[in-house]
């Protein structure tokens, strides 16, 4: 077949020379390479791993971790329980129940409607970030850490107690 890109490289399996067939020179070379690494690491200079529980690797800017429900600059919850995040969620991990803001609760919720119950099933969530994109109120961000492990499935359903940002002045 005619090559379109002209980038094809024909590889031929050449028969090994006697030196290559003996293997030993190549093995000696390889052992030299590993020895270099060994000596470097004995003096503790070459390790590329991170000693995890003590040290943590910085995540990249666009890492998507655990969700958090944001507050506005006065410390009120931004979420207005519109349900767009739940609608956009391809894994159907988000559910919520809306409630009406009562008089005297203006310092708690920004809009007249708020999410009384807001739950994300972390076992279903695929961390696609579509909820973040869908939210018109900039209320939900996936800017947290890795979701911690747990033993029971029900403990992976995160309610508002785990999702809402800590109050401002605390």
């Amino acid at each position, binding site marked *: 077949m005619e090559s379109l890109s002209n980038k094809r490289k024909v590889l031929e399996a050449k028969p090994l020379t006697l030196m290559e067939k003996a293997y030993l020179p190549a093995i000696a070379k390889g052992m030299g390479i590993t020895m270099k690494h060994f000596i470097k*690491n004995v003096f503790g200079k070459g390790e590329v791993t991170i000693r995890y529980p003590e040290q943590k690797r910085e995540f990249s800017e666009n890492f998507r971790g655990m969700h958090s429900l944001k507050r506005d600059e006065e410390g009120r919850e931004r979420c207005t329980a519109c349900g767009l995040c739940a609608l956009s969620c391809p894994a159907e991990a988000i559910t919520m129940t809306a409630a009406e803001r009562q008089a005297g609760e203006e310092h708690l919720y920004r809009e007249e409607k708020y999410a009384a119950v807001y739950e994300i099933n972390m076992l279903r969530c695929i961390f696609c970030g579509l909820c973040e994109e869908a939210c018109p109120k900039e209320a939900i961000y996936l800017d947290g850490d890795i979701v911690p492990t747990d033993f029971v499935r029900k403990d992976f359903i995160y309610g508002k107690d785990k999702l809402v940002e800590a109050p401002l002045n605390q």
Partner: protein
Amino acid sequence: MELSDIIVKVILIVVIFLISLVVAMYSTYAERKIAAFFQDRVGPNRAGPFGILQPMADGAKMFMKEEIIPNRASGLLFIVGPSLAIMTACIGSAVIPWGQSMQIGSKVIDLQVTDINVGILYIFGVVSLGVYGIMIGGWASNNKYSLLGAIRAASQNISYEISMGLSIIALLLISGTLSLKEIAEQQHGFWANGYFTWNFFKQPLGFLIFIVCAFAETNRSPFDLPECETELVGGYHTEYSSMKLGFYLFAEYINMFISSAVMATLYFGGYNYPGMDWVTAHVGPVIGPIIGVVALFIKIFAFIFFFMWVRWTIPRFRYDQLMNLGWRTLIPLAIANIVLTGVISYLLK
């Protein structure tokens, strides 16, 4: 045999047994640590300083784990397999000379459990018994993949034993004895009468063949096909769990220790080191042999390190390549080495 001799022998046996167990135990730790260093990692560092208690933790885990015996496995043979593996690994140490004879008062103590005049043959006999441990383990599991793994392991061990034996014959041509004690004695010191005394300098090709076969016999990488992870089963010990599996793995490390000791004795002068006569004359007939023992152990540890070094450098062979190397390269090479040694020693006479 006097009673005191018997007591000395019993002490020697117990000490050698304990040493081989401890060395095998810490080989597992050393392997993990050395592997980490070769791969730019840290390795075990949780149990104790630098993870020095890791073997204890591993051992405790092995003993605590649930023991599973497959339903239709052959009950007795299933237990015999790992026992045989670890037993054959341990009894090889009986003929290795650990040091020169030690003189305490008028009493001369041999640092060797027994000096039989067929020492090398004994080692070979023990090593070939080790195949039974693998074969029985694979057979008794009642698992066709285990059986396949066992057959593969057995054929590998037997194939490489041939070239190993042939490489030894060339060594026997120049030493003229099968006793390991005498072979070690012949390599006295380091330099005598204008020659290097160590057999490595007289038999470099033989040593090369021997060490390759030793890798295959101990089932170490690059010849670790018996426990082939590429086929997603553990080979002959697929069905084994808890300490029975531990025995199989432990036997491998004891084998490594013993074969390192054999290689050091046969080719690298055993307990001999340069300038040993001068040292012995100055520190006396008790400390002198002990320094020899230390020299032997340094050689052994160097070989164990070499085993691990190779493991993290060379990728595993394919099975047909393994057989090819054994039958079509090493055996002709070993025979050529015998002829070469014969001709040279005839010309030199």
